[in-house]
Structures are given as C-alpha cells and as structure tokens.
C-alpha cells in the first residue's frame, strides 16, 4: 500500500516566534499511504511543524510541498482545493460547541459540497459509524460527550470530505490505555479502508509500536532521524536512547515483540 511518492515534503523549514527559533532547517517527507509517527520532547516544535504544513503558522525560510505543490506559491482557489484534501484532528478535538455531533461532521460538507439533505445526513451518519459511534450521539453537543467520543467525532469531521492526508495531533492523549489502543486500531483500519496518508504527532510509545509505519524524531529544531521503529531502537542519540530505552519505552517494546511473536498463531 505504501508507495515512494511523497505527499508532503518539507525542506529546510525555519519557523520562529520573535527571537526564538523553533524549527531550524527541518526536513521531512511523508509518503503516500503510510502512517508517520512524529515524536519529540514537549515544546520541541512538533505541533508547530504540523501547523506550518497546514498553513496556520507563517514560516521564515524553506519550502513545504503538499501533493507536489508549494502552498505558498499557489492562488486562493487552488489552495482551497488542496486544503479540502487535508483533514486535521486537533488535540482537544476543536469541535464547534454550538453544533451537534452530526452537524459538526456535516459542516465541511455543507461548505464545500452541494448535497441533498438526505445524502448529507446519511453520509454524516456513515462517517460517525465508521469511527465507531452509534446514531445516539448525533444530536448531542460536544459538552455532552466524553473525551474519547469528542476525539472520535473530531476524527469523523476530519474525514468528512474524504481527505487524502490526515493530521492527528496527539490523538490518544487524555484517553485511558484501552481507549487509546482502540483509537490506534481505528486509525489503522481507517487508514487502510480510505487509503489515507497519516501524519501523527504523538507521545504514545504504544501507538508508535503498533500503528506507525515510520517514525520521525524532532530535536533541537531539526528532524534528527526518520525510519522504522527498529532503526530508531538502534539509533545512537542521547534523547532517542532515553526515549525508547527508558522504562516506559522498554515496556512498550517488549509488548510489541510479544505481539509479533504471537502473530503467526492468529493467521
């Protein structure tokens, strides 16, 4: 499913606020059909890089290409059509609090597509079901939903227009381990079903082990390493070593190995 076409390519990106330089010549590729896990210490600028790609944060230097197009060089209408192919799941969900779950999912469709009310409702309900929510949440407002449900509705909204790339900002933060594992599974399933490329900012070592095809590591404003989990484990860098070989890292690694060993029995 993975190909060697880069859907996002970031070259020598420099982003700063005032005197602080957050990203210093960061370079990164996201390939079509992969789930890229993006890690780094708190405050390292993971979210900033994500926001720079989406265009929420201005950049100082470098280029960002999405689907081979430099978003800073295209006109308004082309930019809109590319933005429609991107879906974003914000860390806190960012659901519109005055709209119901169903209306939140319908919102992008209403804006961009000319659909009949019946189709609009059916598709939105289908998306809610695809993220594992029943029809009973349709009329609920975000304030009435649990944290896990908010994330799911937000994911359904991110998928509303059938995007090609989905950005997930710490999708499993604030979820209990079981909920987080289910969410990882959901991301995996949806990625396969819809053929998505996924850019996932995360802190969750379990997610890195179970769902990510590749991992990129941000440190001191640069992407210091990118590759599979095995490459990461072998990599000699103090921050990486303490991240993957610390207590929590070892446990996640151990679990993943157990799973890998058990897999032949399943099939």
């Amino acid at each position, binding site marked *: 499913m993975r190909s060697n076409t880069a859907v996002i390519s970031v070259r020598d990106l420099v982003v700063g606020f005032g005197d602080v330089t957050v990203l210093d010549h960061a370079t990164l590729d996201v390939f079509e059909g992969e789930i890229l896990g993006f890690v780094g210490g708190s405050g390292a600028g993971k979210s900033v890089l994500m926001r720079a790609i989406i265009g929420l944060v201005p950049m100082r230097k470098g280029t960002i290409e999405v689907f081979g197009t430099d978003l800073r060089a295209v006109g308004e209408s082309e930019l809109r059509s590319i933005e429609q192919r991107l879906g974003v799941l914000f860390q806190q969900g960012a659901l519109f*609090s*005055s709209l119901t779950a169903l209306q939140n999912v319908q919102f992008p*469709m209403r804006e*961009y*597509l*000319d*659909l*009949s009310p019946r*189709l609009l409702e*059916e*598709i939105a*309900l*289908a*998306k809610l*079901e*695809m993220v594992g929510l029943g*029809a009973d949440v349709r009329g609920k*407002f*975000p*304030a*009435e939903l649990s944290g896990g449900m908010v994330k799911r509705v937000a994911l359904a909204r991110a*998928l509303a*227009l*059938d995007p090609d790339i989905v950005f997930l900002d710490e999708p499993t933060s604030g979820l209990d381990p079981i909920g987080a594992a289910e969410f990882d599974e959901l991301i995996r399933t949806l990625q*396969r*079903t*819809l*053929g998505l490329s996924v850019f996932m900012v995360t802190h969750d070592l379990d997610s890195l082990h179970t769902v990510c095809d590749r991992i990129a590591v941000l440190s001191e404003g640069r992407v210091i390493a990118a590759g599979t989990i095995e490459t990461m484990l072998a990599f000699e860098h103090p921050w990486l070593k303490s991240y993957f070989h610390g207590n929590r890292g070892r446990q996640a690694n151990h679990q993943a190995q157990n799973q890998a060993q058990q897999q032949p029995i399943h099939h």
Partner: protein
Amino acid sequence: MSAVSLTATADGERVALAATGAWTAERAAELEKIVDETAQLYETARNVDIDLAKLERLDTFGAWLIERLKRAFTTRGSIARIVGFSDADRALMEELRLVNQSPRQDGPAANGGVVALDSIGRAVAEIDRSLVLLAHLLGALTTVALRTLAHPGRLRLTSIMHHLERVGWRAVPIILLSTFVIGAILAQQGIFRFRSFGADMYVVDMVSVLVLREIGVLIVCVMVAGRSGSAYTAEIGAMKMREEIDALRTMGLDPIEVLVLPRIVALVIAVPLLTFLGSMAALYGAGLVCWLYGGMAPDIFLERLREAIWLPTFEVGMIKAPFMALMIGLVACVEGFEVEGSAASLGLKTTASVVKSIFLVIALDGVFAIFFAGVGM
C-alpha cells in the same frame, strides 16, 4: 474530470448495471440523482448486478451511493450484488455495508401552528423557571448574608473591594458623562417647548423631579446592567464551563459565599453612589443648558431648584438604588450559573442577563412608583 455514469443492460428480470468514472464527493449530487433514477427505472428487476470494474476512483460518498442503490433493490425483495471492485475498494465497500442499518427515526414533520404554540408555551414556562431560580438565589444569598453577619470574619473584604473598584470606581467617568448629557438634553427640550407658553422657569421643576426620582437611577442601572451585569454573567459562566465552580464546591466552599456575595455587595454599595453622582451630573448639565441656552443665571436656577424639590424627592431615587442593584446582581449571577458547556450558551446567557435585568429594573421601578404614591412621597 471525466463523466460519471451508470449504464444498464436489462434482460427480462435481470439487470446489469455498470458504473464508470470517478464516484467521489465532488460529483455526489449528480451521482445521487443517477442512483435514484436508476433505482426507480428498474423497479421490477428481480436480479441486479452492480459492476464497479470500470470505476476510476471511489470514495466514501460514491461507495455509500452504490450501497444505497443496492439497498433500494434488496428492500423490495430483489437480489442485488456488488461485483468487480478492486482490492483497494473492498474494505471501503465492506465498511459501508454495515452503516446506516438502523431505521431512520424522523417523526412526521411538525405542524407550523403547533410549533408556534410549543415555543410560546416553552417561553412562558421559562419565565416561571427563571423567577423560581431568582427566588432560590435570593434565598441562598440571604442565608449566606445572615451567616456572614454572625461571623463577620468570613466576609471577603478583598474581593468586595476588587469588585467595588471595577463596578463602582471605573464606572464613574462613563456614568457622569451619560447622565450629564441626558440632563442637558432634558433641559434643552424643556426650555424649547415651555418657552412657547412662557413657562421657562418650570423647566427646573421638570428636570429636577424627573432626574432625582426616576431618570438618574434608571440610567445608572441600565449602564451598570450592561457594563457589570454582563461581566458577572460571563465570569461566572466561564468559571462554570471550566469546572471551577465544581472545584470550589469540592473544597468545601460555597460558591454563593465566594462568588455571589462579594459581587452583589459591591453592586449594592456602588449603585447608590453612582446614582448620587449621576443625578448631580444631570442637574449640572441641566443648569448649564439653562444658563447658556435658556439665559437663566445659575443663582436663579439654584433658587428655583430649592423651591421645586424637597428632601423626599431625592430620597425616592436613592431608596430605589440598592434594590435595583440587588436585582441586577441576582439576575446576572443566576444567568451565569445557567451557562452550559458551549460558547453559544455563554453568549445567550450574557444577553439574557442584560435584557432581563434592565426589564426587571423597569418593572421594579413601577412597583416603587405605586408604593411611593401609597405612602405619599
């Protein structure tokens, strides 16, 4: 973009449908029409094959419409199959086979008249509910106030001073300015009308009675409701949204004592002071206009003022002020506690707070008018 189509080959009760083109979100409206028409056209078909082999692209929208087409046939008892999809689309078709299975639960469309009656009924019930809430808070506040009187140490002086500065001191300039202008306008209009029948002097009577009894306190209350009542509602509402009020409760603190009492005490102190300042500013404005526009010397104005009013005129206005302050504060806090999770609800309640408190201040003014007429003031 290539054309989308659904071509049919019918052979008696057997129909083979072949989909071509990109069945994606951008074409969804067009596709829906094609799908519905096809389902209607081949109503009698008993055996339907939907062939996806010639599709260029398929996304959730297209896949759902194909699934919907299939269901249109199967619900009539026909046999419908989807064939020829690629491996990449298999998972998507499989996923959509499972969705929207529960029957749609739309009731019959509501009658317009019933809807109107329903909303009137709800509005009336809402008035009732908000009066009950107001009484609740007044009761709770009284309890807390009495408890505080018994233990004066529990009174939050710092908080009261903080709110006094915000709702009292910082409101002084705008209150002075607006009442000054109102006084001046009243005097100008009075002089203009009264002059035609030579009753210039009575302008002073009109303005002073009006300002001291009614206008002064009303203008101040409207300003305070808009300025401070709305702020109270928004603050308490935002605290409620962020669970700060629940946090207070779990620490064993009474939100009424911590949040409501200091705010209302500050208002009850500030509004009479502001009313006094406002009334003086209005009289000053009136005097200035009488002098510059009406040609009435200041000492004559003061002389006339002394004859026109007596102490009760001033007292009527001042007695009303703290009660109106209490009303504004209660409404603002009640609405604040009513805020629910959403940003829209915060806006709605803040608006309701201002509108309700201004209306209730006017209604209260009416009650006071009857009362003062009764006691002869």
